[in-house]
């Protein structure tokens, strides 16, 4: 029955995608294509039917997004604490969430105002009157930025989700003891997966598995990950779905272990940014998809030779992993270049507020 549950979660994700896009004013025709991009994506529906719990995580993440969009901070915090307990990776969204919940979160009515989608034609004509926010730069207004983070909403969110996380961890620790703690959390600190996977680190780990790893090596593998995550957060937090999507792609690509089920994590966020991309399916969109899938197939070919034909192709397989990482980087850059940066929450238009927003 697990597979039924996950397939149901898969469909639920489709429903949530539709909800989110509707809240942002995307017309029905565009919405349908976006939902189709999730429901008919061969990478994703096979994961749920295979018995992997990832669709449940995706559904939870989208629900958290919906809660934030509707101003239900406590509910968002509740689910966020639970989902981080369930799967560690959503912790990467913690900082963007806090940033978004900062100063300009709630409008005058107490509920956030969502920036509505506008088609490209409208964008051209509205250029002068648009209240588009620039991405925050780290150097300027650092103090302003930090102080804007301390609001009632952010503190509430942080405290509540943090306590949820510790509460759930506490419950399971009480039920299962140290075994639970080791398997669920501490395992991630010391795990080494020498078996071949998409990550570029697998061969390095296999070559060193008999000697152990120095702390320098461990830190060195976290560094690229950290650089990209920070760069993304600093630049794109306000456009929350876009930031989450890119963060997930980068997290998966630079991780020490990468398997196909992790792709679902960003595929559920992809439909949320499609209405804002300037990239057409022909030919740039198709090129991205083909480059990504092509490099994956290339890797899979070498993996097949290694595992099912017993040929020693470790070096070739490792090189294919590096090519796949380059492909991921390419896709990320293409997506960034063609995206119309639009913050999720907008400050209500008014003479006084306009100036304040620009300063931010």
């Amino acid at each position, binding site marked *: 029955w697990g597979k039924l549950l996950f397939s149901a979660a898969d469909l639920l994700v489709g429903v949530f995608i539709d909800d989110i896009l509707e809240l942002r004013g995307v017309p029905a025709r565009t919405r349908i294509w976006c939902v189709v991009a999730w429901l008919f994506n061969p990478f994703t529906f096979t994961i749920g039917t295979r018995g992997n719990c990832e669709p449940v995580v995706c559904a939870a993440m989208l629900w958290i997004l919906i809660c934030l969009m509707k101003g239900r901070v406590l509910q968002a915090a509740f689910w966020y604490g639970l989902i981080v307990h369930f799967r560690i990776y959503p912790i990467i969204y913690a900082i963007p969430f806090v940033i978004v919940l900062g100063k300009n979160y709630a409008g005058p009515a107490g509920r956030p105002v969502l920036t509505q989608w506008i088609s490209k034609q409208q964008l051209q004509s509205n250029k002068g009157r648009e209240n*588009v926010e*620039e*991405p925050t730069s780290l150097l300027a207004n650092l103090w302003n930025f930090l102080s804007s983070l301390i609001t009632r909403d952010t503190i509430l969110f942080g405290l509540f989700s943090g306590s949820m996380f510790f509460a759930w961890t506490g419950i399971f620790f009480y039920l299962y003891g140290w075994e639970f703690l080791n398997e669920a959390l501490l395992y991630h600190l010391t795990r080494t*997966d*020498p*078996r071949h996977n998409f990550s*570029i*680190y697998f*061969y*390095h780990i*296999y*070559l*060193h*598995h*008999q000697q152990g790893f120095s702390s320098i*090596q461990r830190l*060195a*593998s976290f*560094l*690229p*990950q950290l*650089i*990209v995550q920070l*760069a*993304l957060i600093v*630049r*794109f937090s306000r456009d929350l779905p876009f930031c989450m999507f890119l963060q997930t792609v*980068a997290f998966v*690509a*630079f991780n020490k272990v990468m398997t196909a089920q992790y792709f679902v994590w960003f595929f559920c966020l992809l439909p949320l940014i499609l209405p804002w991309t300037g990239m057409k399916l022909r030919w740039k969109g198709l090129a991205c998809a083909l480059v990504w899938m092509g490099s994956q197939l290339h890797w899979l070919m070498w993996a097949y030779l*290694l*595992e*099912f*034909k*017993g*040929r*020693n*192709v*470790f*070096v070739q397989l*490792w090189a294919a992993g*590096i090519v796949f*990482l*380059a492909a991921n*980087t390419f896709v*990320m*850059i293409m997506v*960034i*270049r063609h995206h*119309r*940066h639009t913050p999720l929450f907008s400050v209500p238009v008014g003479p006084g507020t306009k100036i304040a927003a620009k300063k931010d």
Partner: protein
Amino acid sequence: KRHAAQIASTEENPAREAVAVRTHARRASGYSGGPRGRPANPSGRASLPAPLPLFSPISMAVGSGPCLLAVALLAAAWISDASSSDKQQAHSNQQYVNCMPCSRTYVADAYADALTSQLSQHHDLTEVSDTTDLCKGLADELDVPTLSEVNRQLVGEGSHRRLIYSVKFGNFKDAMIQFLDGYDANLVIIEKLPSGVFADPFELQHFVERKVFLDVAVFGDTNLELPSALSNRSAVEIHFDLKTSTSMDYNLVIELPLHARYPPLDASGYATVEFGSPDLLLRYRRKETHPDPCMWAFQNLHVTPVEKAAWRIPCGDEAHTGFVSSLTFISALVEASTCAEWIRWTGPP
């Protein structure tokens, strides 16, 4: 001869000696009250008590304690066994039988602890059964099936292969039918897997669910992910119901799917893993509804050693470490910086 080989190998390892000594001692104590009419106990060690006092003072005199005593006991056992082995072969109904209570489902679980250390291939499995009772009536003149031929082959390519056993019984068909009418009989195959190969317990459970095997168990390390250098050995025990073999003319073909772990690094690029000899036993008991007490009798099906099976698995080369590690980290940093640069310089117009 099997005992001799076993004793020779155990002299190197005190731990193994301890196991062997325990079993020998047990047998010695158990056979003092054996049933009449039998020329000797199944292992033929009626003469064991006599030489013992001669050896023990000598070992004590030498003074290295339990080790030498064990050696002495084993030597005594070997001598007495060698003298009676002829007798053993002379009596055709001198079956080498051991019994186990029905509550013990598996034979090899007694080895579960020993498997985590280096295990030799020479242990005689049936010795570990704790027989105090000699399965009265089970081992008398009985035409227990014997094997005429056993073949074992490793089939397949890559990291997932199958070990195929082809087992032929030597009895005439009528004799087999008669035997199977009166007795429940299982073929028990115990394959001690070499380091570097493992069996997936979940996969094997499917075989049981689909009634291909009667039962199957995996002992030892079943961690599916770790490489060989970080894992311990395991053993697989398969129970195959002989009743289902009637349709196959008592020629059984049994497939055991196996998987390879990542071997330790080697410059040649390939590691070869060799399989030892499997243990084949016949497990049978009378078909009565409430035999009292319920006991399985085991017959060790002595076979000529099967041909060696060898598995060639690709492995990493330590020479690659230099360029792989450096290029990995460099690429990661390059990609990360490229991303960061694009992020910095891209924004709305």
